[in-house]
Structures are given as structure tokens and as C-alpha cells.
């Protein structure tokens, strides 16, 4: 190790003889595995401390087995006991890096051996079957980009809140797997089956019942995320993907599907993920309603007088984003934002709107209309429709940002009662 330290230093200072280089390579080649971590940590530290005035005069570190972010870019999730949130204010487009995808699990992330993992499909089927991960991967595959959002993705209460704090429980990936309909055709589904139960292999043995129409429409069993094997937090080795449906129904660590004539009324579809609407409790809200947020400028960013490109994301669980409107005068007037193509169904859609800020205090807002004609409501409209006890599920109000004359951007928290 000592010898290599010396070599590294020489590389960085640029005074490197052929002999030193060879010596360094040979030493690196015989490094025992256990020292890899130590040498990686050291290399990282070295890059950090060796930022130089003129990078064109010094040979940098060579290729490495695993890429890392620039040390100047440190986007992180924001974890609580039960979830972690995507730093939407740090994103420049709509694919969420897999290590920044939001998490919500009900009994932690299980450690699953992909070779031992099996998926059981039974109930109202012609032939109950078990599939290994290898079996699932043999079926014709498909890749689809869509968002996943937690049903409880709404926080408010103070001005110092980032997009991550307000609604960071939504992320987007390019998912690869097999259509659930392909698997259902393989098993043979009785025409008496109207629902299917999906169950996870976590310590919550999490279950939800899903209408069978979703299986024949666009449901998938996915095993890959953004081109590589899915992360454990997202359901490794396989999860259910129900585009547009509330997050918890996309059962992670999927181990069992049971076909049934009627719903099971599991805990997560009765006493959780339901919400008061006036004097009733609404259940089986599957699709996430259309929503948008400006992610730039947003707290804690600052803006300067002059040209500002307002940027953000918009999405709908019921289809495509039809249009996004932006207001720079606290909602008095609205302008159409530009949508980044391609606009995909049930997917985060990036929008942009160029604005010349005159330096006066104002509020900026965005609102989306989806292809069903649904216009994103204000919080007041949601409260009027559902009552003051509406709870925290399926909340999609317009988010307003207050721009101060000093260029500071603060969230405008609105009260429910």
C-alpha cells in the first residue's frame, strides 16, 4: 500500500517515469480484495484535496469499476423512519437516478436471494404455477417509463420547504419486465376472477387487491430499473408495476398473486390509504390525480433580476399531460409552458417557461391539465369538495412559491382549516 501511495502522488504531481508507472500497475494488480475499500476511500479523498488550478496540466485518475458523482454534486434522499424523499429540486429532467428514487416500506427492506425467490400464482387459475426470477426473465420483455407516487405525498406547514419536503414521494424510472397479461395468459385465468391479490416478501407481507382490468391493461412485473437490476429498496428482485396507481399498490418483493371473485379488504385498502370525504370514507382510489410543481426556482434557491427559466414537472395517473400553465403574478394570469417531448402517458413531464423578472416581490405557480380534462385544483377547492377532515391521501393542490424582492424563494404554505 505504501508503495502505491507514493506512485499515486507521483501521478498527481505529473513527474512519472515509465518504471514508476509499471510498478504502480503491478502493485494495483496484486492488491488483495479486502484492501479495495480502503484504496477507494483514499482515492476519493485524494481527488477532493487535489483539486487543482489548471486541470489541463495534470493527468487525472484513470478508469474505475464504478462511476461516482462529482464531489461538487451531492444530491441526497431525505429519510424518515418509514420513507425517504427524492431531491426533486436537484433534478434537471424526469428520470430519477435509482439511488435517489423515493422509498416507502412498511417493515424495512428485505434481503432476498434472487436464486431462491419464487412467484406463486394461484386462486381462480387453470393451473397454479411457480416462477423463478429466471423464468420471469425468459418471457418477452418490455420497457416503459412511468412515475410512481405515494398516495400520502403532501406536506405543508412552513415557508422553508423544498419540493423534496412538499412532495418528494414521487420518482420516475425506466422499468423493464414482463407484461402481467403475458404471465396471466401462461397460467390461464378463470373468467370468474375479477380481482387479484398481490403480496410482498417483506416482513409486512404487504398485500393489496387490484382490479383484474389493470392486469389486462398495462400492469407489469418488473425486474430492472434504468437499465440495471432493480434496487432492493424498489423491490428487488421483482415488483408489481401499476402505471398511474398509488405507490403502495405496486407491491415490491412480489412473491404471490391470488385471483379472486372479490377484493380481500386488506389493511392497506381499508384502515390505511383511505380518506374522509365529507361524512364518508373513500376507499379504492387507485389513480393519482394530475399534479405539477415548479422545481426551479424553488426554496432554497435564489433568483436574480432578469431572465429566469421556470422549470418543473407535471404528471397524471390517468394518462398524458395535456398542458401546463404557469403564473408569475400570483395566479391572476396564466401562460402556457413548453412541454419537453416526448410526453408519455402516466409519466413525469418536464415543463419550462421563460420569464423576465422585474425584481418585484411576487408569487409563481403552475397548474396541469391532463388528457381527461382534469385541471389541478387549489387546496381550497379540495377542501371544499372533501371537507376539512380530508386527511393526507390523494392530495394534489397547486404549489405556490413566493419570490421576495431580495430574490429569495419561499414555499407558500396554505392552511386547511
Amino acid at each position, binding site marked *: 500500500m505504501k508503495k502505491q501511495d507514493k506512485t499515486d502522488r507521483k501521478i498527481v504531481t505529473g513527474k512519472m517515469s515509465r518504471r514508476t508507472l509499471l510498478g504502480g500497475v503491478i502493485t494495483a494488480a496484486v492488491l488483495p480484495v479486502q484492501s479495495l475499500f480502503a484504496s477507494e476511500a483514499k482515492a476519493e479523498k485524494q481527488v477532493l484535496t487535489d483539486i487543482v488550478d489548471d486541470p489541463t496540466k495534470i493527468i487525472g485518475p484513470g478508469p474505475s469499476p464504478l462511476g461516482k458523482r462529482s464531489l461538487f454534486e451531492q444530491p441526497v434522499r431525505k429519510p424518515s423512519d418509514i420513507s425517504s424523499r427524492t431531491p426533486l429540486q436537484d433534478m434537471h429532467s424526469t428520470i430519477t437516478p435509482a439511488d435517489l428514487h423515493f422509498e416507502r416500506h*412498511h*417493515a424495512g427492506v428485505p434481503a432476498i436471494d434472487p436464486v431462491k425467490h419464487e412467484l*406463486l*400464482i*394461484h386462486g381462480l387459475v387453470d*393451473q*397454479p*404455477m*411457480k*416462477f*423463478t426470477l429466471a*423464468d*420471469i426473465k*425468459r*418471457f*418477452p420483455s418490455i420497457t416503459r417509463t412511468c412515475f410512481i407516487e405515494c398516495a400520502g405525498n403532501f406536506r405543508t406547514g412552513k415557508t422553508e420547504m423544498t419540493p423534496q419536503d412538499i412532495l418528494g414521494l414521487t420518482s420516475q424510472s425506466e422499468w423493464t419486465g414482463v407484461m402481467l397479461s403475458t404471465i396471466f*395468459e*401462461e397460467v390461464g385465468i378463470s373468467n370468474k376472477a375479477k380481482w387479484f*391479490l398481490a*403480496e410482498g416478501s417483506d*416482513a*409486512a*407481507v*404487504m*398485500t393489496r387487491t387490484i382490479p383484474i382490468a389493470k392486469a389486462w391493461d398495462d400492469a407489469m412485473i418488473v425486474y430492472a430499473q434504468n437499465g440495471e437490476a432493480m434496487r432492493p429498496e424498489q423491490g428487488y428482485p421483482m415488483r408489481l408495476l401499476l402505471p398511474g396507481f398509488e405507490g403502495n399498490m405496486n407491491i415490491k418483493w412480489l*412473491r*404471490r398473486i*391470488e385471483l*379472486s371473485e*372479490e377484493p*380481500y*379488504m*386488506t*389493511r392497506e385498502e*381499508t*384502515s390505511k390509504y*383511505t380518506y*374522509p*370525504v365529507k*361524512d*364518508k*370514507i*373513500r*376507499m*379504492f*382510489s*387507485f*389513480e393519482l390525480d394530475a399534479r405539477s410543481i415548479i422545481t426551479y426556482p424553488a426554496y432554497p434557491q435564489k433568483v436574480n433580476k432578469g431572465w429566469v427559466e421556470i422549470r418543473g414537472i407535471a404528471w397524471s395517473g*390517468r*394518462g398524458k399531460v395535456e398542458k401546463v400553465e404557469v403564473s408569475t403574478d400570483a395566479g391572476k394570469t396564466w401562460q402556457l409552458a413548453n412541454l419537453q417531448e416526448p410526453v408519455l402517458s402516466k409519466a413525469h413531464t418536464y415543463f419550462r417557461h421563460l420569464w423576465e423578472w422585474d425584481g418585484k416581490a411576487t408569487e409563481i405557480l403552475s397548474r396541469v391539465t*391532463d388528457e*381527461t*380534462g*382534469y385541471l389541478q*385544483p387549489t387546496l381550497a*377547492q*379540495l377542501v*371544499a*369538495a*372533501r371537507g376539512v377532515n380530508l386527511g393526507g391521501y390523494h392530495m394534489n393542490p397547486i404549489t405556490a412559491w413566493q419570490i421576495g424582492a431580495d430574490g429569495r424563494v419561499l414555499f407558500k404554505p396554505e392552511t386547511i382549516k
Partner: protein
Amino acid sequence: MNRKTVYILAFPVMLFLMSLKTAFTSMQAQSPSTDSLKRPAKFGFGRPATAQEIAAWNIDIRPDGKGLPAGQGDVKKGKLLYAQKCAMCHGEDGTEKPGVKLPGSALVGDTSANSKPKTIGNYWPYATTLFDYMRRAMPYNLPGSLSNNEVYSITAYLLNANKIIKADVVLDAKNLYKVQMPAKKLFIMDDRKGGPEIK
């Protein structure tokens, strides 16, 4: 160069020409077509599941009682089990006390509609869900460790504490699903289908 040497040299050239011919033929054979038209009725992947495998995982219980196992439980045993296995998170008697934050949710309370906090009495529409959820996921620190009799007993205790069943009821597969929950009448299916209405 003798004759033998010529053969030795010519052999790789022949191989090369042969491989070229093969490549050319296969290129001609690749006329564009979509494989999706030729999908088989069955791919034949996976294997039939055995009855034992299904029984080992099939732990769900439906509101009509399908899936409820043999066994039974009563309020008295349930109270003791609750104290041992549940009270540490859900509180001594399952109720919310002012100023005390429970690690788990309150389970016992007023059964009238829209009262706070949300408990089994005012927010659980089916008694079968209690059995299903407790057996699969509780206690939080030892999930899946309760016997069927224990789950019946704790279910009986919690239903009695919420004033839904009497103290002398013995719960089993024949009567648990018949318990009428006060909150059931409050639940409505979401009927929204998109469109301009805010609902």
C-alpha cells in the same frame, strides 16, 4: 514452397471464404418480420405449484371468512396476550392518552363516525382484516410469530375493547367474519373517472 505447404496455407483461406458465404446466406435469410405474431399460446416457463406450496403461503382472509383457519380465542386470553405483545407500542389499553405519543397507532376508541383518532371502532370496516393483518405482520418486532389461537384471542380482546362484541364471545372461523363493524357503513368506493370535476 512444396505442395503440402500450399495446402496448409490454403486451408485458412478456404475457411474464411466459407464463413463469408455463411454470413451472406444468413443475411439474405433475415427478412424483416415481427416476432409478436408468432407468440405461442403457452411458453412453458415456470412449473406447477404443489398444494403444499400453496398452503404454506396462502394466509389471506377474505371478508366472507374464506381463509379463516381452525382454532379459537377469547377476550380474557386476548387481554393477557395484548399486554405481553402489543401494549409496548399501542399503549396499555390501546387508547390515545393526551400528551403521549405511541410508537404504534391507537386501536381502541369511540366508535362514532369521524371521531379521532382513527381506531378499530371507528375506521376498520371488516373484522377479518384484523385477523389477516395481525397474523401476517404483527407484532412489529416479531412478525408472523402469533399462533392462530393467539390471533383469535387478541382479535376478540380488541373487538370487545371497542365495544363491538361482548366479553364472553369465543371467536373462531364460524363467527369472526359475521361481526358487523360500526365503520363499514362509512366506506364508499371511489367513483371518479377523471374529467373536469374536483371531487
